[in-house]
């Protein structure tokens, strides 16, 4: 399946483009997507461990499957955050998954 990955901020600047179109096997996960991104754009290698991935506008863990047609994005750390990604801060909310 084809997956379009949107890029923002430093990820976009580093890759030199605003989106990537990748071909993944069916039933791929976010972890598989990370691997495919590194293969496709090695320049992102130093950044990728610090980038979150969103699937359909929700932060997604590595085990999450990617359905065909999903909207996927690379999310660099947000300006007010306090360092390397803090994925779970408020467990009662849906803000971080």
């Amino acid at each position, binding site marked *: 399946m084809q997956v379009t990955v949107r890029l*923002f901020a430093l990820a*976009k600047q580093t890759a*030199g483009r605003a989106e990537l179109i990748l071909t993944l096997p069916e039933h791929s996960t976010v972890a598989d997507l990370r691997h495919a991104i590194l293969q496709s754009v090695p320049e992102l290698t130093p950044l990728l461990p610090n980038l979150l991935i969103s699937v359909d506008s929700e932060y997604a863990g590595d085990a999450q499957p990617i359905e065909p047609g999903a909207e996927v994005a690379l*999310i660099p750390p947000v300006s007010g955050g306090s360092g390397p990604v803090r994925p779970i801060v408020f467990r009662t909310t849906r803000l971080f998954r």
Partner: protein
Amino acid sequence: MIEITEGPIDHNALTERVRSHQAGAVCSFLGTVREMTGDRRTASLDYEAYPAMALKKLEELEAEARQRWPILEVALVHRVGHLDLGEISVVVAVSCPHRHQAFDACRWLIDTLKEVVPIWKKEVWADGREEWVHPGLTTPASDHPRDTPS
């Protein structure tokens, strides 16, 4: 009330919007473009959003805050694009029956907004270099930022 806008933010109008007879307290926070960061001088800032996700996260923030505090009205507005020194990048306005609730809700909303809402800022330094601000990521400022597609 949730908005991402490219134009200037009217913070007075937002504060008025959240006022009500049930409120004993209104707290408004303005984020503004600061000139000095340590000894480095900022010329301007460029903000970029992932709009669909940013709006969704702002709505979730409002819903979560309403569960935590007896909020009467709330406005969350973030500006994107090019901002000059002193301009307002973000406004959080909240009204509650009592002041400690309004202070606490406003503080939580701006702090959490800046951690979870996918909006990024790029420093345009006075020396002409440009640099995305990503806590935890250290990269040299780019000398050729104009190569980046928008």
